[in-house]
Structure formats: structure tokens, C-alpha cells
């Protein structure tokens, strides 16, 4: 018997009622995947395949039509403070300052904290994303990248067991995105944070993810492959393309997105070296779910 995974997704399916008079639409079905503690998992797929819906189900903001999500062996049925969400559109409250936005989350999570304790926690996480100089500014006084950083600080500040991020850098320019990716990488490595992140940027996934879930296009989308990142850790944006695994892996992901599912990466004869991971998943042999 193997130790159960931290997150276990079983036969997940989402069907939306169709527009009046039309058939309901099954966006995705038969989703099975696991997330281990401390793992950084990226979900890649074309727009409209149901990625946000999956994340919303994990966040407890949406309900699955069929299937289950277990977190530490308990079924997830609603939202909770054990999961921190970084929203696609930052979702900061514009009438609150950076400090107040983060404090709103901290006070919700740590109800017994004194004012000073709340403030210390807020300042710690605002500092972590490098926004201490802007801590008393309102969101409209910040750049897009700074707002997204506040969103990240808010999600981290409740010290969640899992971080859920929906294309957090999608709206940012390439330069800012790179900087924040580096920051996120450093923070996640320092804290061993478990992360589930949606992205449509292949390089972002290669840089950040330990494991990449590849989704087919909807309707009836599925996770066709679970690809383990073969690049050695620690990775960095500047260095990772020197890693011999980079181009084959990147090509594999691009092929999947452009041509649809093919031979899983782990079955492709590369140089024979197994995918390098510093944290082996606890579920025994690396599993590949094929379509």
C-alpha cells in the first residue's frame, strides 16, 4: 500500500447547462491526477478547455458535476483557508491599501491575532514580494506587476497548505513576468510550498513546475499526459536553456499543444537519463496517464 497523495483528483467532470434549448456541454471529464506535498504542478492547455474551472473546483468556488477531490484524504466540498488563491485578475479590493488588503486575509485566517501580530504578518509577506515601500498605497497607484505581487503576498500570508494560481502573470509584460517568476520560484523553494498553477506559457511551466499536466482541448477535455520536468533543480531563467533536457522537453510540450497528444515524454528515448527530480513523488513509479 502506498501513502496517499496530498491532493487526489478522481474522475472529475464538469458539465455546464447549455444555452436555452441546447445540449449541456461537458467541458472536461475523467480527470485523474495527484499533487504531492511540496510539489509545484502546472496545468497547460488551450484556452476554453476548462483550466479555470478545475482551479475553481480545487478552490471550492465551483462544484464538480461528477468525481471527487481529496485533500489529505478528506473530500473537498467548499472553499477554505487551507488553500490560498491568486486570481487571474489580482482581485484586490480597490478601496483598501496594500496593507489593508493583506490584513483582510490575515485577520480572516488568524482570528485570535492581536493588531501587532496581524501587522507583523502583513509586513513580513509584503516584504517577501518586495513591496514594503508601497505598503500604504492603494491598488490603483500600483503597476500591474505590483498588484499581482500583492495578490501573491495575500495568498501566502494565510500560510495555506496549497497555493492555487490561475494564469497569475498572464496580463503582465514579459519583463515583469520574468522578474516575478524568479521571485515566486525563490519563495516556493524556500517555503516548500505546494502549488497548483495554470499557465499557457510553456517556458513558465518548465521554469516553475516539477510536474506538468497537459490537457487536451475541450469539450470532453482530459488530462492526456502528466509530464515530469526533467530539468535539474535549481532552475533559473538565465541558465535553464543550457540544460540538455530543455529543448527536447520544450519541443515535446509544444508538440502537444500544437498537434495534440502523442507519445508521452517519459516513453520517448532521450539520452536514457531518468527525469531528474530532487523530490521523488511518494506514489511509487511515476505514473503517466494516457488518453
Amino acid at each position: 500500500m502506498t501513502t496517499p497523495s496530498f491532493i487526489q483528483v478522481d474522475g472529475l467532470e464538469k458539465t455546464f447547462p447549455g444555452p436555452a434549448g441546447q445540449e449541456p456541454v461537458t467541458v472536461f471529464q475523467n480527470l485523474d491526477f495527484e499533487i504531492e506535498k511540496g510539489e509545484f504542478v502546472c496545468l497547460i492547455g488551450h484556452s476554453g478547455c476548462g483550466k479555470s474551472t478545475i482551479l475553481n473546483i480545487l478552490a471550492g468556488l465551483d462544484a464538480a458535476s461528477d468525481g471527487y477531490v481529496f485533500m489529505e484524504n478528506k473530500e473537498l466540498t467548499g472553499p477554505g483557508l487551507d488553500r490560498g488563491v491568486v486570481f487571474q485578475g489580482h482581485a484586490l479590493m480597490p478601496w483598501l491599501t496594500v496593507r489593508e488588503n493583506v490584513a483582510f486575509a490575515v485577520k480572516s485566517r488568524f482570528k485570535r491575532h492581536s493588531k501587532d501580530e496581524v501587522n507583523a504578518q502583513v509586513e513580513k509577506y509584503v516584504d517577501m514580494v518586495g513591496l514594503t515601500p508601497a505598503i500604504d498605497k492603494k491598488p490603483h497607484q500600483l503597476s500591474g506587476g505590483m498588484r499581482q505581487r500583492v495578490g501573491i503576498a495575500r495568498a501566502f500570508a494565510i500560510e495555506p497548505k496549497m497555493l492555487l494560481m490561475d494564469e497569475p502573470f498572464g496580463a503582465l509584460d514579459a519583463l515583469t513576468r520574468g522578474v516575478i517568476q524568479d521571485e515566486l520560484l525563490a519563495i516556493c523553494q524556500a517555503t516548500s510550498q505546494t502549488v497548483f498553477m495554470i499557465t499557457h506559457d510553456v517556458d513558465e511551466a518548465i521554469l516553475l513546475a516539477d510536474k506538468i499536466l497537459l490537457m487536451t482541448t475541450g469539450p470532453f477535455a482530459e488530462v492526456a499526459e502528466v509530464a515530469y520536468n526533467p530539468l535539474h533543480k535549481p532552475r533559473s531563467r538565465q541558465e535553464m536553456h543550457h540544460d540538455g533536457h530543455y529543448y527536447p522537453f520544450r519541443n515535446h510540450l509544444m508538440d502537444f499543444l500544437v498537434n495534440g497528444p502523442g507519445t508521452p515524454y517519459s516513453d520517448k528515448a532521450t539520452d536514457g537519463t531518468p527525469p531528474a527530480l530532487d523530490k521523488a513523488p511518494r506514489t511509487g513509479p511515476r505514473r503517466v496517464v494516457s488518453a
Partner: protein
Amino acid sequence: MSQSLSLRAGLVSILILLAFIGAWWGATLPTQVDLGDMDPEYAAMMGLDTTQESDIPTPGHIGSAIWTHLSDPFYVKGSNDMGIGIQLAHSLWRVLAGFALAAMVAVPLGFLIGMSPLMHKALDPYIQILKPISPLAWMPLALYIIQDASISSIFVIFICSIWPMMVNTAYGVSSVRDDWLAVAKTLEVGPIKKAFKVILPAAAPTILTGMRISMGIAWLVIVAAEMLVGGTGIGYFIWNEWNNLDLANVIFAILLIGVVGMILDMIFGLLGKVVSYKEV
């Protein structure tokens, strides 16, 4: 640049005022009466004058009326003769009382309608029917039931202030952005805290706009209501001066109503600024 624009705009405003007063003054100059071939001495003896004062008060008359009223606004010489400040205070009190009562009903009810599609659908027909009724149409019913002129006026203000506040609150509450509510959900924020810390601040600018509209309507209605029921208030003052055929006082009261209405509107404009936020 913008400062010089306001400066120039102020200048134009003053010029318009001067031109208006000038035209008014010109139009109300005493007129020469054509006495035909009548002997001027005979005419004078008969009390006929060659010049005749205008029926419309001149700017000078208004100026002196303003001076008289503002120099002693708070005297009370019997129930029919009170200073303009006292009359104004009566009107303001009725407006504020009716408005405050309306806010206490409209804001919670608007919250309910905005949060619950069921209540929205259920209450909508009533609102649609009640909203277009002229508030003054309620007056006879109010007088009959309440049996008190002043309280009836307050009721009329209540009934006319309630709709814009309720409709705006409902709209503001129902259009709170989903991702703010999602944030509250993921943070397991309770319903009370969600209402006060998320929905209220998010909807506050819209609610304040509703209050501003309500206050504007209330101030329009109070004058008419007081004309109808008499007793005290700025509306009664106007009606009384009309009965005295003192047009200078009527015009003075019209100006005063305008100025007070503007100040009330400015107060709500400022409150609106306080709760407004820049969305990003």
C-alpha cells in the same frame, strides 16, 4: 492650465450675473405713462403720475429683501411671522427626518434585493408601481391617517426618498465584482463581515449616488408639501408671501431654496468622494 480655466469660467459667470441683473434692472425701470393731451397739472392733481413703478420687483427690492431677512433670520413674532432661518430649519428638519427614515428602510431592503434574485423578482412589481407615484399624491392619505401636517410632510419625504436609494443600493450590491466575493469565500469570511467589509464598501459609491438623488428629490418635494399643508417651512413662506403679494420675498425665497439645495447636493457629492475608489 486648469486653474486659469476656473478663473476664466468664474469671470464669465460673474459677467452673466451682471448682464442678467442689468437686463432685469432695465426691464423694471419705471415706465413713462402716456397721458395724451391731458394737462400735466390736472393729472398730478388727479393722482396720476407720468412715471409708473414696475409690478415686478427691481434688483434693488430683492437686495433689500435679502438684507432684511438675513440680518434677523431667527425672530419669532407669532405663528404667522417667523424669521427665514426658523422657516428653513423647519423644512430642513422634515427633509432630514424623512430622508433618514427612508435610508434606514431603503439600504437594508436594497441589500436584500441586491443579494437575493428571488427577493428582487418578488419585490420588483411593487417597486415599479410605487416608484412613479408623485409623492404629493400620498398627502391626503397621510393627513387622514397621521392627522398631523408636519409628520405627514415627513412621511411624504420618506416615501419620495426611498426609491432612488433602494434601487441604487440593490444595483450596487448586485454588481459587486465576483472576484471580490470569491476572495471573501476563499477566506471563509462570514456573512456579516462580508456584508460590511466587502459588499458595503464596494457598493458605497452607488449607494451614495442614490442618496444624492433622493436628497435632491426630497428638497424639491418639501417646498410643494409645505405649500400644501401650510404652517411652517420655506414652502409655506413662499405661499404666504404670494398671498401677501410680496413678490420680492417670493423671489428671495426662490433664491434661498436654490442655494440650500445646492449645498445639500454638495454635501452628498463630498460624501460620495470619500467612499469612492478607483477600480483597476
